């Protein structure tokens, strides 16, 4: 270790607080995202209990509003996004043959800002004025200081602002990682589909989140500093908020669903033992969806009164998105066609995804027809539609990905029997919950209302929906039991546990060592590992001799930077300028330290690699 700098290696809790290893950050994202998923799921079940019979008084109307606001906000920003980031962190660098991400330090900063933002938002439950209750879209004037007194919406604004910063940082990190860190031979058109979707998702994050940042700043100024952005009596405009929110919000929908498309592509191809059908058209469709995603935001606002010309344009643009999405559906079906399909739990989730997502897409096109939308708007039909794409699309995709990559992340195989039980309970529960909601909406049940009267024909279907929600809860619990059971077993997953692994992550041990690749692999084609298998090679050809590997040093600074933002957020909300100052000083102080002290990192010697049993 001639030129290695002495770097302190932490263990235990300090290791997790200071880690800059993308695989560990992936696990941190998974744990905290999973935790928020459970909170959001609990809120959902409470909503469904309230609605199981007419005129129920299980929760008060105010609590119901808080529950539905926090359910939506938590699930989108604090559960779905982080679990997507968990898989991106754990898998994307491995799929492109990189030793690390481009910005390990920023990666850790992204996680901690998300985490503290989420914690801040959820602390609102324990305040005297309660959680935000203006819906996850936080429309003004409902969210304005006049109609939302108390601190609830302030928690929404500042919590999302802080966690949004983390997401933006994470997006930039993945863009640069995928552009600059690919292994030799890994050209863009050889990248696995999941990496492609991660790339486009990151680009959407980069261009959509700044709009949310501005929207939240404006709402914060209105609420905390007497601004007039959204106050009509002072010349402000309430429709402006809707525009800004959906200019961010619609790309956000694609930010969520594209990675699920990528996961499904990987799994369907692996378990059909076939090359993904129409790879280049898949890439094209992904890029096109990302592009069109920015031009359709006003389809959330057809009933605002934008006029027939605008409504028609946005209607057509929205329907256009069905074309690339249809390309993807057909490609998955043609990949399955004639393949030797294995129905592992991961593949069950993936195959279950396809028809479910098609149903969500079809109702999407129905909603895209502006005149019809005037009927569907703000009814349970909309609720059914977006749960079909987000739960039936994204969550099934995430479950599929977790079951597929679990051995690569943790070195242990999930129990297949329990996993299949998870699939069936969750899948049946899902359709029970949301299928009937289409009809509830069509016969006139409005969304976001805490109860309904007897004798309107809503009773039976609401009961079915509640039973389904409980079944989904059971499915989630079975998954948690599976995780617990698996954690007790020895770490013995082989490098390629599904035997038919096609991409680079299956060429290295499970779980991946901290340097990922002892020698950077040479990529000779699409489905790099599969190509070597077909050519009769045992593994990847290395692109470089064995040498010392440079690693970044762990750092506690990201944790404190985010803690500073957290303290600053509270200071702003309660006008405690001392706390604001302390928080800002902490954040900027950590930035100062990061800039002044160079991170030399450390080296892992080739001898050390051999000790750890790297096979040549």
């Amino acid at each position, binding site marked *: 270790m001639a*030129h290695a700098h002495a770097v302190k290696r932490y263990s235990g809790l300090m290791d997790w607080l200071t880690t800059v290893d993308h695989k560990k950050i992936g696990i941190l994202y998974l744990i905290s995202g999973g935790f928020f998923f459970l909170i959001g799921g609990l809120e959902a079940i409470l909503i469904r209990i309230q609605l199981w019979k007419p005129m129920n008084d299980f929760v008060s109307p105010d609590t119901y509003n808080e529950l539905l606001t926090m359910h939506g906000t938590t699930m989108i920003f604090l559960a779905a996004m982080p679990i997507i980031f968990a898989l991106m962190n754990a898998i994307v660098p491995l799929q492109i043959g990189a030793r690390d991400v*481009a*910005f390990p330090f*920023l990666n850790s900063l992204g996680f901690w800002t998300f985490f503290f933002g989420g914690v801040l938002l959820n602390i609102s439950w324990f305040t005297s004025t309660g959680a935000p209750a203006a819906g996850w879209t936080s429309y003004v004037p409902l969210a304005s200081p006049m109609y939302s007194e108390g601190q609830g919406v302030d928690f929404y604004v500042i919590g999302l602002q802080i966690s949004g910063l983390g997401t*933006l940082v994470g997006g*930039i*990190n993945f*863009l*640069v990682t995928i*552009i*600059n*860190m690919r292994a030799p031979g890994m050209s863009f058109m050889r990248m696995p589909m999941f990496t492609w979707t991660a790339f486009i998702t990151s680009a959407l994050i*980069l*261009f*959509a*989140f*700044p*709009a949310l*940042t*501005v*929207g939240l*700043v*404006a709402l914060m*100024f209105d609420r905390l*500093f*007497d*601004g*007039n*952005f959204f*106050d009509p009596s*002072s*010349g*402000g*405009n309430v429709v*402006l908020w809707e525009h*800004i929110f959906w*200019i961010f919000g619609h790309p956000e929908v694609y930010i969520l669903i594209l990675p699920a498309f990528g996961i499904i592509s990987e799994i369907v191809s692996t378990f059909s033992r076939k090359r993904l059908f129409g790879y280049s058209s898949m890439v094209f469709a992904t890029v096109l969806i990302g592009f069109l995603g920015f031009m359709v935001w006003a389809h959330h606002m057809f009933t605002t009164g934008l006029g027939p010309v605008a409504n028609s344009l946005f209607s057509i643009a929205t329907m256009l998105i069905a074309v690339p999405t249809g390309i993807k559906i057909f490609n998955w079906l043609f990949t399955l066609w004639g393949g030797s399909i294995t129905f592992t739990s991961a593949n069950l989730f993936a195959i279950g995804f396809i028809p479910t997502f098609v149903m969500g897409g079809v109702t999407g096109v129905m909603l895209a027809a502006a005149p019809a939308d005037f009927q569907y708007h703000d009814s349970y039909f909309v609720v059914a539609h977006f749960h079909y794409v987000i739960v039936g699309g994204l969550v099934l995709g995430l479950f599929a990905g977790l079951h597929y990559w679990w051995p690569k992340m943790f070195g242990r195989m999930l129990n297949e029997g329990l996993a299949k039980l998870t699939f069936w309970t969750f899948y049946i529960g899902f359709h029970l919950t949301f299928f009937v909601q289409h009809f509830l909406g069509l016969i006139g049940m409005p969304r976001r209302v805490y109860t309904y009267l007897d004798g309107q024909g809503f009773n039976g279907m609401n009961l079915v929906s509640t039973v389904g929600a409980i079944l989904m809860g059971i499915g989630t619990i079975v998954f948690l039991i599976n995780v617990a059971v698996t954690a007790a077993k020895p770490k013995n997953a082989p490098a390629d546990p599904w035997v038919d692994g096609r991409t680079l992550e299956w060429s290295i041990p499970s779980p991946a060592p901290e340097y990922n690749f002892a020698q950077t692999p040479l990529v000779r084609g699409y489905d790099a590992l599969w190509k070597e298998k077909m050519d009769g090679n045992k593994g990847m050809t290395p692109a470089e001799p064995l040498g010392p590997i*440079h690693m970044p040093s762990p750092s506690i600074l990201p944790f404190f930077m985010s803690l500073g933002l957290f303290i600053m957020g509270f200071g702003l909300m309660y006008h405690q300028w001392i706390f604001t100052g302390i928080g800002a000083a902490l954040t900027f102080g950590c930035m*100062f330290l990061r*800039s*002044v002290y*160079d991170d*030399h990192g450390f080296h892992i010697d080739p001898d050390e690699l051999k000790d750890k049993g790297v096979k040549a």
Partner: protein
Amino acid sequence: MSELSHVDGQLPHEPEKATLEGRNKVLGFWLFLGGEVVLFGTLFSVYLALRDQILDGPTPQELFSLPLVAIATLILLTSSLTSVFAIQAMHRNNRTALINWLIVTVILGFGFLGLEIYEFMHYAHMGHEFSTSAFSTSFYTLVGFHGAHVAFGVLWISLLIAQLFKKGLTVVTAPKVYVAGLYWHFVDVVWVFIFSVVYLMGKVG
């Protein structure tokens, strides 16, 4: 990795791109600027949507004084030029010239900030406060965001000057300076749109 580039004891021509870390930093910063374009674009859109909602406050014609804006523009434009000279000095591996040009840039940045603070105080005095109207709120938010970017840039470049004194020009400090230069140009580019869209168009009516 810094060791590798110092093998021959001399800095490469473009030291900011000599290491993978440097190239990552430059690319990542460019993408960040792409995001900043959307950030300022949203602020401009909000301003454009609300600029006619003046209520009882003073109108843009009464408020804006073009000579003041012209001076601020000249200062910021010149500082952008001096930061170009700084990067050129860096490419010539001339640390003294680099530091001097950066110092000039920082001084001009402070000059711009001083003018802006004076301007805001003057406006507030004329009854154009943050809460006066939707126009005033969106004006202060847009121009204030830009001012905050200038303030951050001034502090950042000052910190880099201190580091250049202490650590010298290396493949670690060079990407930082290069990226700060990009940032400074971007702040200037945003100002070009601010003086055109906010001040000049406001004066026209």
